């Protein structure tokens, strides 16, 4: 296909490198150096999408990050789909596949557009809220239909084949933006020896200089740009980052830069290369040289394809050699807009008219237009555009000097392109990210960066300094300041001489009047991406929204992926006019990260798949895997959940494991339990302060269970602590609570009792813990140790230093199953050896490995709690029926004592943990079920507590449960009812939570 809008010469494209690309299934040609947008315009593609709400055809409006319409879907395969790509920022590569994201059956002939044409009165602001609010249950259905019609792009259904990187960086000066201001700032900083990162979102440095024909030192500006970039490239202390958008400015000068490493090369990154990289930069000083975006004007039908921002027209002509039409009408409120008409004319295309809203424009560019004989219509405006899929003509009329009304008769002009310029808006986004509110400036007719606590400098157009010479100068000054602040001495930089252009005063005008009132005129778009019109903003104001932040939320202005880069100021102006206020009086809008959308891939980097979160394994993990264990995540630990034999269901496996343990012997890998080594002469006293029970008399060689509470008296962890020596203890914690408990101990030691001599260290990973449990555990252990295991020598709650399977071991006779049980602790690297020896000798005892689920069932049969399952931060030891674990006579008021004594904690009717037996023994209550005393009570029924643990017990051949019941400890034998989600009601009887061996004889044998 021919590129009908491609100029014969000019631009920064490489005409010797033709490329082909696909848009909506059709093949087109472009050149290396094109963006997708410039190539589409070269090929005369007018429609790039349908609008969000009214489904109106939309074309390319801008040439950079601010583009609201040309937001396309990219990707040649399902796996490489990328949504929300601005065609204006996507470099063309050979074989690029793109499509519009909306329009059904196609963007050219769209069905919703017919509905949208009736729009106006039918779809006011808040339309979706107002229409689809009821019934609430159908919202999901509505939402998916609305989304389909609106077309927001889609994520791939297959895994991304590319890899992404993250990198942490430090620098003295980060320069954001590679235009004239950024170039002079970076050069100044670099020459002084500062560590500089210089980032620009485009493929080459130069910024606005790439899009114009202006000269520096009398030569094309690109020569100076090339020389500077070449010099910077030669410095070791400078990192140049083209194709890198500084997307977020966070606290303490932390910035994120999104570098697109290979997006310009192919659909998939070349082998061995990361597709994108997220730089996480801590910068000592930041120079924002982010430039400005030109504002389009708001006039009737200003969204018809062919309507563009004036500067974009110049960019396409000068940078890409593309004239996006044949007959141009330019409307401007200022001198800079004239450049588009001059460039258009110089490109050999017809300028139909320059419509200047000012009565009497003066300035160098105005003169240049006159000299070229262009048709200059002053004191007038384009009040309406004709055409539907492309501009066919415009209506021009004289307007009042204040720009508020049409004052004369309308004349019609034929044109296919309308460029408009309402002045410039500084790109202040990054300066807002850390909470700094921008400040309105009447001279600039825009917001400027507000005061900030960040180490931030600004230079160039972001300050409203639009001339190249001022931008260069401000960049130099910012560079000098930054260099001085980091303690370096500046070296000399000679700025190039820029052309001086005299400009007349601009007119402050945003919204072009129409013959009809705004509400009746054809739609005048403010925000293209979210389809917000001037009339819509007026409605919002009329309905009582007075702050611009509220108007935004009601109309959705600025809520698109472009964050309203083009439309926000115009919208504020329309709101201000409707409210009869000034723009700053309506409030300021603030921008949030990210400046442009960032792919999830870049945010995730390598932290995905197996690297998403570290996994912790015990030393016996491989054995568990080989035995076909099912695993459960506990914190970062992978713990065996149960060990099914081939063909066995989970329930069958659990029944077998539970019975084998109580009948003979079972083994649990308990290595994941938190272990904290505590030493020091005050260790014992410290334990007494953080546990609720007594520790003063625990002898060396003895173990004791302890409950740990917060100052509120509520249980937060538990475990067994053993006395290894007079001043040496080993504390165990829950698997998930290990880190928290250690921090808790440190907190109290460091902040409350620093005078105590006590030291804590985590030893969780140092030890493997192999727990054998059951009536034959002693016989099994006896085969592997010389230690006297008799009950007289080695009683329940004793521990011994001995040898097991030939390696040194600490053996603790403690029990979480209620059986005779030994926890064998060996150095972690001996764990597997001892585990295998146990199985060698355990075969004759039917030694059965079990996981966390059987552990839970066995402990529930004994009524042992699990902190975090049977506690939730709102229960104290007495609620758990564990008053036996609370010392009353300890001299020091230990943590939790005062809290437990609070008025609310001593109520009789607190929820208390009890056992529950269902009347039908086969029914297992679901955990979380809420109990009621009267199942016939009207809804909402008064609830008395919930089930915390519930299992099938093979040993008891019935279900067992633990749960909270209000005043339950005094309600033994009474009934509680559990109405379930399926409508059934389960009856249960309150009982002791100790379902098996209530006297505790089995563990003492």
């Amino acid at each position, binding site marked *: 296909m021919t590129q009908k809008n491609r100029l014969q010469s000019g631009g920064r494209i490489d005409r010797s490198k033709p490329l082909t690309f696909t848009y909506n299934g059709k093949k087109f040609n472009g050149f290396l150096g094109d963006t997708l947008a410039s190539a589409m315009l070269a090929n005369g593609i007018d429609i790039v999408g349908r609008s969000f709400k009214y489904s109106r055809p939309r074309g390319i409006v801008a040439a950079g990050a601010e583009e609201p319409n040309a937001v396309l879907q990219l990707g040649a395969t399902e796996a490489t789909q990328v949504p929300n790509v601005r065609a204006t920022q996507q470099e063309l590569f050979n074989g690029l596949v793109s499509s519009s994201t909306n329009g059904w059956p196609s963007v050219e002939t769209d069905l919703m557009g017919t509905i949208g044409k009736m729009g106006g009165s039918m779809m006011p602001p808040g339309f979706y809220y107002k229409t689809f609010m009821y019934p609430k249950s159908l919202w999901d259905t509505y939402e998916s239909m609305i989304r389909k019609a609106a077309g927001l792009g889609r994520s791939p259904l297959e895994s991304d084949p590319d890899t992404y990187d993250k990198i942490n960086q430090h620098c003295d000066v980060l320069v954001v933006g590679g235009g004239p201001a950024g170039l002079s700032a970076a050069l100044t900083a670099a020459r002084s020896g500062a560590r500089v990162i210089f980032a620009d979102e485009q493929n080459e440095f130069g910024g606005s200089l790439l899009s114009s024909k202006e000269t520096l030192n009398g030569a094309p500006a690109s020569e100076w740009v090339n020389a500077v970039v070449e010099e910077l490239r030669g410095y070791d202390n400078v990192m140049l980052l083209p194709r890198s958008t500084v997307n977020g400015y*966070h*606290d*303490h*000068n*932390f910035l994120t830069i999104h570098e697109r490493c290979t997006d310009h090369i192919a659909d998939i990154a070349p082998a061995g290369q990361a597709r994108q990289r997220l730089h996480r930069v*801590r910068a000592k000083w930041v120079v924002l040289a982010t430039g400005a975006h030109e504002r389009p004007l708001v006039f009737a039908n200003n969204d018809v394809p062919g309507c563009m921002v004036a500067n974009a027209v110049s960019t396409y002509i000068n940078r890409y050699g593309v004239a996006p039409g044949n007959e141009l009408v330019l409307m401007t409120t200022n001198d800079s807009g004239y450049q588009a008409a001059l460039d258009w004319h110089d490109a050999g295309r017809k300028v139909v008219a320059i419509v200047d809203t000012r009565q009497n424009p003066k300035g160098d560019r105005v003169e240049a237009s006159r000299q070229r004989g262009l048709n200059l219509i002053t004191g007038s405006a384009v009040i309406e555009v004709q055409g539907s899929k492309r501009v066919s003509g415009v209506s021009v009329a004289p307007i009042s000097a204040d720009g508020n009304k049409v004052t004369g008769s309308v004349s019609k002009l034929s044109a296919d392109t309308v460029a408009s310029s309402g002045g410039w808006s500084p790109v202040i986004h990054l300066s807002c990210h*850390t*909470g700094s509110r921008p400040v309105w400036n009447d001279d600039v007719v825009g917001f400027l960066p507000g005061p900030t*606590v960040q180490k931030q400098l600004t230079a160039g157009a972001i300050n409203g300094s639009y001339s190249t010479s001022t931008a260069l100068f401000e960049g130099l000054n910012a560079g000098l300041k930054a260099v001085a602040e980091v303690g370096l001495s500046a070296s000399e930089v000679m700025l190039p001489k820029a052309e001086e252009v005299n400009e007349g005063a601009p007119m402050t005008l945003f919204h072009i009047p129409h013959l009809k009132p705004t509400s009746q005129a054809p739609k005048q778009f403010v925000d293209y991406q979210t389809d917000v019109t001037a009339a819509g903003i007026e409605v919002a104001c009329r309905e009582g929204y007075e702050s611009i932040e509220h108007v935004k939320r009601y109309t959705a202005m600025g809520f698109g992926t472009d964050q309203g880069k083009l439309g926000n100021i115009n919208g504020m102006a329309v709101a201000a006019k409707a409210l009869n206020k000034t723009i700053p009086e309506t409030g300021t809008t603030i921008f949030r990260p990210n400046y442009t959308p960032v792919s999830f891939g870049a945010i995730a980097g390598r932290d995905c798949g197996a690297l998403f979160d570290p996994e912790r394994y015990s030393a016996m993990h491989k054995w568990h895997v080989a035995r076909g264990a099912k695993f459960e995540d506990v914190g970062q630990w992978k713990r065996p959940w149960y060990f099914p034999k081939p063909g066995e269901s989970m329930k069958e496996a659990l029944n077998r494991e539970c019975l084998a343990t109580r009948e003979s012997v079972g083994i649990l890998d308990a290595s994941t339990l938190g272990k904290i080594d505590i030493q020091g002469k005050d260790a014992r006293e410290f334990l007494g302060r953080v546990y609720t029970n007594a520790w003063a008399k625990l002898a060396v060689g003895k173990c004791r269970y302890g409950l740990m509470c917060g*100052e*509120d008296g509520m249980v937060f962890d538990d475990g067994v602590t053993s006395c290894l020596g007079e001043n040496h203890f080993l504390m165990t914690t829950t698997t998930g609570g290990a880190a928290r408990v*250690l*921090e808790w101990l*440190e*907190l109290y030691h*460091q*902040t*409350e009792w*620093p005078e105590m001599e006590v030291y804590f260290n985590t030893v969780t990973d140092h030890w493997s813990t192999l727990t054998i449990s059951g009536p034959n555990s002693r016989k099994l252990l006896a085969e592997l140790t010389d230690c006297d295991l008799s009950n007289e020598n080695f009683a329940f709650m004793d521990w011994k230093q001995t040898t097991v399977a030939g390696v040194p071991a600490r053996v603790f006779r403690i029990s979480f199953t209620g059986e005779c049980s030994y926890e064998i602790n060996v150095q972690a690297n001996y764990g597997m050896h001892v585990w295998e020896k146990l199985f060698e000798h355990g075969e004759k005892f039917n030694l059965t490995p079990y996981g966390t689920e059987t552990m839970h069932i066995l402990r529930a049969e004994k009524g042992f709690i699990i902190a975090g399952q049977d506690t939730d931060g709102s229960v104290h030891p007495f609620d758990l029926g564990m008053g036996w674990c609370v010392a009353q006579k300890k001299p020091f*008021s230990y943590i939790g*004592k*005062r*809290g437990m*004594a*609070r*008025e609310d904690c001593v109520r009789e009717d607190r929820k208390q943990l009890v056992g529950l037996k269902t009347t039908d023994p086969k029914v297992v209550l679901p955990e979380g079920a809420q109990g009621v005393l009267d199942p016939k009570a009207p809804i909402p029924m008064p609830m008395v507590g919930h089930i915390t643990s519930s299992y099938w017990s093979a040993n008891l051949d019935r279900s067992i449960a633990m749960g909270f019941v209000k005043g339950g400890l005094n309600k033994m034998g009474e009934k509680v009812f559990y109405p379930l989600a399926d409508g059934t009601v389960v009856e249960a009887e309150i009982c002791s939570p100790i379902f098996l061996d209530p006297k505790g004889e089995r563990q003492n044998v």
Partner: protein
Amino acid sequence: MFHIYCPHCAEYREEEEFHASGQAHIARPLDPEACSDKEWGEYLYFRKNPRGIHHELWVHAAGCRKFFNITRDTQTYEIKEVYKIGEQPSVVAQSGNSK
């Protein structure tokens, strides 16, 4: 993302290494049993939520495991100073600033 100077390590480190542990200078009453429920409740639950200068307890959790204090502006997120446990801040809120 804060950049925090650990007074024990004497280095700036990234926020990821630290945990915030709430308001600083909340001393445990020396005789808890002598506290009324109201006093104990205030010790337990009542915290300042100032707009502006605030003193916070932080711990270098993935570093030296030491606790220390930070004076931070809750509005601008500036860290005005760091100081060790047992020391007093040199930057304090102007009267009327702390609510």
